[in-house]
């Protein structure tokens, strides 16, 4: 079941990063900018998730102080 969740995450990320990074007609190899974008896409998406959690916890802490 953890295996199924892992596969489903990889499919979702491949689909999302493909749409974001591969904008031209497919060629015999990725352009340098497509390759860089793909290589960084997963890490920045995971950074985004962590950043969002941190922001929400900051807001909760602030609200806690005010009450």
């Amino acid at each position: 079941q953890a295996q199924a969740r892992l596969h489903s995450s990889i499919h979702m990320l491949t689909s999302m990063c493909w749409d974001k990074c591969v904008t031209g007609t497919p060629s015999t190899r990725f352009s340098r900018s497509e390759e860089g974008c793909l290589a960084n896409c997963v890490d920045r998406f995971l950074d985004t998730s962590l950043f969002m959690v941190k922001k929400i916890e900051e807001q909760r802490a602030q609200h806690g102080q005010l009450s």
Partner: protein
Amino acid sequence: AQELMNKTNEKCFAKCVTKPSTSLSGSEETCLARCLDRYMEAFNIVSRSYISRIS
């Protein structure tokens, strides 16, 4: 709450991180922080409208 976070991450990453590079830039983080607040606000507006309409 999990689904709201997943949707927020997906929408805000799409809007704010248009060219993923080797780290999140300051302007990307500013965009993400505002996007988080706006998506939560949109969720509240939509919830209120929907619940008042179907009640």
